[in-house]
């Protein structure tokens, strides 16, 4: 058997294998092929400009701080038009109250009644709010508004300082009522 015959045989076998493999899920994802490796190294400064995510352990929280007292002024100027005075809602989401309603037929989901992690408030306000001017607040303003919303929900005091060290330690009232469905169990 020549090398050529052998190569031909391998090709035929490969073709048969392919034919048998029709409709197998994602076969070509598993095969190893060379990749062009066209990514350019990212510098620390480039990453710092974009890395705005904050985990529940506080990783990603920037320097700065705020209190509810300071946050009230920011809220009135930047948030109140959409979320109502003191977070009562209207025209957009209600941010305050609702604790004790989750098992009723009319649950009220707010930061205080529903959100499991205080760090999410900082992360979300910084990246997405105010709706018409996202990423426009200073870090101090975001800390202050976060403190204000936590205070309105009775979770912290009005002069408690919220910063990178204290925010991850705030325990949200509904935190233990979430059941993680991944990994493992399906529904």
């Amino acid at each position: 058997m020549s090398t050529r015959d052998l190569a031909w045989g391998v090709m035929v076998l490969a073709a048969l294998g392919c034919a048998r493999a029709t409709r197998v899920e994602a076969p070509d994802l598993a095969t190893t092929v060379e990749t062009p490796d066209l990514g350019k190294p990212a510098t620390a400064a480039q990453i710092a400009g974009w890395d705005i995510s904050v985990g529940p352990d506080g990783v990603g929280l920037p320097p700065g701080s705020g209190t509810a007292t300071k946050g009230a002024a920011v809220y009135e100027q930047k948030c109140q038009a959409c979320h109502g005075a003191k977070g009562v809602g209207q025209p957009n989401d209600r941010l305050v109250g609702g604790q004790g309603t989750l098992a009723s037929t009319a649950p009220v989901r707010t930061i205080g009644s529903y959100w499991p992690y205080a760090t999410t408030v900082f992360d979300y306000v910084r990246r997405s709010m105010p709706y018409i001017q996202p990423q426009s607040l200073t870090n101090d303003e975001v800390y202050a508004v976060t403190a204000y919303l936590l205070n309105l929900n009775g979770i912290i005091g009005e002069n408690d300082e919220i910063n990178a060290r204290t925010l991850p330690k705030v325990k949200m009232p509904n935190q233990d009522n979430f059941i993680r469905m991944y990994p493992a169990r399906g529904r």
Partner: protein
Amino acid sequence: MGVSRRGFLKRTVAVLAATGLTGRGTEELAAAEPPDVPPWMKAPGAGFNAYGVPSRHESKVTRTFGRSQPGTTGSGAIRTPLEALEGAITPSGLHFERSHSGVPDIDPDAHRLLIHGMVKRPLIFTIEALLRYPMVSRVHFLECSGNSQLLYQPAPPSVTAGQTHGLVSGSDWTGVPLRRLLEEAGIDGGAEWILAEGADAAAMSRSIPMAKAMDDAFLALFQNGERLRPENGYPLRLFLPGWEGNMSVKWLRRLKVVPAPIMTKDETSRYTDLQRDGKSLMFTYPMEVKSVITHPSHGMTLKGAGLYQISGLAWSGNGTIKKVEITTDGGKTWRTAALTAPVLPRALTRFRLPWRWDGGATVLKSRAIDDAGNVQPEREKFIAEHGTNAVFHYNAIAAWSVAPNGEVKHVYA
């Protein structure tokens, strides 16, 4: 033309009534029926069109039921008109939209994808670079996990199939396996999750399990053969087959490899499923087995007894549709519908069944079963288990009643 004035008017009125069209010239409609030769055969047609659009006679087939947060124009969703479509591929222009702060107008040359965090080499990719990578093509459904949330309401909403179920669409997606790029960056030990972030004004973000990223996730660049539509993530979106649509982050700009979930707003305050006991299910990723009869469906009127074809869509985020059963007698008997090939995993599957309507009142339902053995539940059982507050992941059986006058309506039955 040999058409009397009376005949002309009569036919014109009839045609107008049938098409529901008004406010257009009636001359051309006058002579389309035999023995007359239609006017569009008596003069050359229109010239070439640089980018084709549907016939003007189909102008009523649009996305439907757009709902935005108060004071916004692009924070909300608009649905696919399922009842007006056939087959298993949704036209790109009718694919549902769900956005959190409008649709950004992104210059593909200026767009960048950053991969960083627990990697050996943080990398930045241009779209031009990504277009050079080996690609895969996959037919998959995409379903917002808020699809059919109206059906949690105690009374059946009087809206069309697209309005209840149209936050699902099906496309042929092409892109780069995410695994390739992660391998190039080099994943550190202990990296279990990836934060995916969009370049929209909400910087919408979700935490993605590493196992899914290394399995069948890909970065989509093309939808139904052409580059992504802006509202579906142009120039780059994450695609996670079978999982809730919100995780397939659009306008993807950043992937941060992390040890644990970031707990973003959209995986805590939203896209968690509040149960009747006040507890919430979190990280409910696969979209459950589901189906809906699109024809006939709510808002249609059957024109008399006789033979009809029941047609609908079935899908499962947990695998491939194995069987769809249909009842045309309110659940007393069930028949197996024909599935239209190819029946693909995590893809819309068209089912059809001939049905002879005797003209009496009845109820039509479809029930999908996937190859993992999941069976689409009846609404009563589903609500008993999950309550009415979950908002997301509604997959119970939908029912359409047919009245003796032919009117088809959404019912709970």
